[in-house]
């Protein structure tokens, strides 16, 4: 398998990363090197093996549906790039 420049641009768009033509070209070579390594996986038959998603065989805990956190929005918004009247500001998305 080998990626092409269009693949890199498509993935970058999905990942919301702006890439220039030069960056995409440089990254393409690196990604193909890495996927060369990753392709070693395909040589192994894994028929009948259950995927392992987690190191411990645990079940997620459930908790009571009660309020556990106080209101700290001012503190949390103090590190936001742009805030007004308790709201996070972003460029207009609806005309």
């Amino acid at each position: 398998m080998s990626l092409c420049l269009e693949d890199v641009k498509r993935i970058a768009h999905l990942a919301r990363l702006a890439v220039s033509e030069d960056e995409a070209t440089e990254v393409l070579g690196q990604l193909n090197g890495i996927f060369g390594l990753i392709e070693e996986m395909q040589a192994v038959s894994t028929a009948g093996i259950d995927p392992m998603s987690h190191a411990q065989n645990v079940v997620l805990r459930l908790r009571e549906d009660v309020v556990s956190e106080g209101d700290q929005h001012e503190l949390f918004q103090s590190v936001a790039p742009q805030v007004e009247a308790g709201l996070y500001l972003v460029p207009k998305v609806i005309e």
Partner: protein
Amino acid sequence: MLNASLSELAALLDARKLSSVELTRFFLDRIEQLNPTFNAFVTVREETSLAQARAADQRRARGEALLLTGIPVAQKDIFCAKGWPTTCGSRMLSNFVSPYDAEIVRRFDAAGVVNLGKTNMDEFAMGSSNETSFFGPVRNPWSPAAVPGGSSGGSAAAVAARLAPAATGTDTGGSIRQPAALCGISGIKPTYGVVSRYGMIAFASSLDQAGPMAKSAADLALLLNVMAGFDARDSTSLERPPENYARDLVKPVAGLRIGLPKQYFAEGVSADVIRGIEEAIAAFRRLGCETVEVDLPNTQLSIPVYYVLAPAEASSNLARYDGVRYGHRAAQYTDLMDMYQKSRAEGFGAEVKRRILIGTYVLSHGYYDAYYLQAQKLRRLIAHDFAEAFKRCDVIMGPTSPTTAFDLGAKSGDPVQMYLSDIFTIAVNLAGLPGISIPAGFGDRGRPVGLQIIGNYFAEARMLNVAHQYQQATDWHLRVPAGLEVEPA
């Protein structure tokens, strides 16, 4: 004071021969003097640390001190600490001051431990050399031309240069053990789920685990006693009764069965590392341990498996950095999409972007089964290999890293070569097992060799016992790089 163990420092504090303020001042002065050489710390806040030290001294005067009260410990800059800049080695978080404490920061605080500062690291813990940090590389105290390893390179260098008595780290694919090995210190990655990840900035959530880094196994045990424990705020935290990880330190190790995986002594491991490890194994034999060859046939596959799973999880975890709620936002943009794309492109460095791209690709439509699912199936095979091996031995030993510290720049242009250097550590994360690295002498050019001890699930106390007994029989862990052993007058 440079080589004093945590127990010895605690005894000095307890006997009032030393105050926490004096101890903290000593290390702050040393950081001021030596950090420009090593770049191990990214944030030092003298007044905050000294205020904590004063509070610790007052607590001791009231008779309320716990064992580590008043001892300064450096925190990897991946742990959120309220009021402290918490950058994760990234431009993305270079302006982030945490509004809350990570659980382990809270635990250290409750124990009266002084936060000595935040240590440098590979960006978002993605790297094996500390060269991906936005704040510049860390230098190895044993050889300034060499990398300290990564991603907890700042913590490892800080302990090795004796800028801190101990530090914290995190380990997703070897990020505690490999820098510990390359810097000649001790570090433990506990069993997945033993230490809370709450407030620890996420990289690959099914693999990330925090642990201590220190001069000796005995110190690691005392630090782990503070760090480990159930936390309802981390959904992967395991509900287990508290343990005293120091309980078995002094037990003899005669009769211990050591498994030696043939794959860990194969081609590709440098001769000086093999020599150091074989000498360490010989020391264990002299202590009455037996050795048995074990087989970990899927070792080689752990690299591709890891470099699918970790980037996939990272691409999901790092989606949160969108320039809206915290972190870097581009100065110029045309619309929301442009703001996302530019903020992320500017905020992340090259290695983080590569991993996000790999992860996004392997999770994208049509590729999930071939990559992510296949990697998860192979992960089970890798875990199964360890389970089989532990039927024949108590612990597994081998090199932590196939080479000693490499030179800065030697691998930074070639991601594949960098990834291959993680071969002996990442399988342990995939299986979720605990692993330790301890110093085992020196290879070529005086660069430290690290011995890895892998245990079965929850065998930390036993592994620390094994490491401690080795450190009773050897003194590699007490060696200090030339020129750094000088105590101030």
